[in-house]
């Protein structure tokens, strides 16, 4: 199966976001690189608002991700609650 990934800047805003993504995607692998992290996952990857909110202790709008996002691959589907990356093949 193909891999999707999401890459985020390494900073204080993303620490819990990364933690949340890894918690929601046990199959994902986190690669730390200078100033950034790249999270790779087979098939699909989900970023869940509720998990992030639990960790940061405040309301979170998934579109805030754009501020610290570096790159991603896969077909994107975003709703108020989840951002999903996936390949169909």
């Amino acid at each position, binding site marked *: 199966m193909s891999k999707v990934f999401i890459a985020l800047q390494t900073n204080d805003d993303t620490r819990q976001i990364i933690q949340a993504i890894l918690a929601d995607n046990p199959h994902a692998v986190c690669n730390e690189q200078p100033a950034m992290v790249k999270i790779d996952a087979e098939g699909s990857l989900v970023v869940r608002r509720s998990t992030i909110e639990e960790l940061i202790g405040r309301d979170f709008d998934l579109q805030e991700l754009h501020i610290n996002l570096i*790159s991603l691959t896969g077909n994107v589907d975003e709703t108020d609650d989840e951002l999903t990356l996936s390949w169909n093949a």
Partner: protein
Amino acid sequence: MDMKVGKKKLGLKEKYQHMTRGLGWETTYQSMDDVFPFVKYEGIKIHDWDKWEDPFRLTMDAYWKYQAEKERKLYAIIDAYAQNNGHLNVTDARYLNAIKLFLNGISPLEYMAHRGFAMTGRQFPGVGARVACLMQSLDEIRHAQTQIHSLSNYNKYYNGFHDYRHMLERVWYLSVPRSFFDDAVTAGPFEFMVAIGFSFEYVLTNLLFVPFVSGAAYNGDMGTMTFGFSAQSDEARHMTLGLEVIKFVLEQDPDNLPIVQQWIDKWTWRGYRVLTLVGMMMDYMLPKRIMSWKEAWEVYFEENGGALFKDLARYGIRPPKWLDQIEQDKDHISHQAWATFYNYAAACNFHTWIPTDDELDWLSQKYPNSFDKYYRPRLEHWREEAKKGNRFYNKTLPMLCQTCQIPMIFTEPGDPTQICYREVDYKDNKYHFCSDGCKEIFEHEPEKYIQAWLPVHQIYQGNCFEEGVDPTAEGFDPLSAVLDYYHLAQGRDNLDFEGSEDQKNFEAWRGMATKNAA
């Protein structure tokens, strides 16, 4: 970020619907064909523009909010970097040449992308597509501006940053990135979207922004890291748009498939050729290396691109042409490009050098199939010659490829000792190409590519000297006249890094930063 998230009146999907639909209308005073004159001639058939959807569902109000936040972060860092003399914290002054290349060769493309998306958005009758193009057009001008602002700090101290606008239209190697974008913006709106939105943004920009910018961070260049990542945060949206364009166009009509496939073949190859410059930056110009060009290619092109084309196979799309050659080339192109710039350092606006022994060892290790056999001995030979006072500067001008405008430096697939030449007779002239890819692209649109402004031809035709210069005068020095025309100062902006003003200044200033004056 400390941003208050209020109760939403509309969900994301509903908001997107309201903010991107019903904003357009069928014109009656003028026919739709007159209002959108370019939307049909490429042969792409669109039946329902409302099927267009931005998967991020970003609307203009949210766009401004998040972009403003990105800008505040960026400028806080840029200011701190400048106030703290951050330029003295880069690993060593050779690194500066990578960002000279960036400012001269890449930032102007951001500006061209701004223009391209503005023009393209204007041509699409569908509002969703126009909003997406508007956002990307604004992103691109932001990238051009933030890069120019960030790098202007270096211009206060170092050479080669001083006149990128002027040089873009004149300096020989800059015709490569410039002609690439000129080709795209002079295509129709759908081809532009496939060229830049899909092939460049989706398939290739990760290679530019992710490993290179992470490399800038690794080399202590907070300014470049910051604008790079800030730009890249927009790229994620651009990539998503690029993929959406392909899917949308292919779903609209089966007749669109062969047209789109031909564009994907063409623009992946065109973009790949331009990225030769990035390969060289990664392998030779970052004093502290993060990954080799070949490794980056494997992760970001072979792995991601492979997944992408597997996904698109359901529409009948196959992977781009010439992949077998590209696969072999990854062992070679960065070395071939560096050798070329080393040769032509007298006509460049940045410095080149022979890597240190450690760096040569690193390259040997990263390129076990090619470096020791083909490239290391040549670099070592040049180093020996330079020690004897014969630093090699090539004084002849190279033959250029009519399509990509890169000198004919690339080798035959399967034989790295043989330069690859292709040619085509068209009307009364013979045209030359670096590869089967560039040749085939020419053959598909010869009337476009015969108009190419090839720097070497232009120099020989006498078009690259300042006004009033007489090339027939006694003692006329063509190189010096061309440097004047480029706005480059001989001995300051060009030649080897060893002995350059940049090298001396950096050393002196770094010393002042770490010691008290005597």
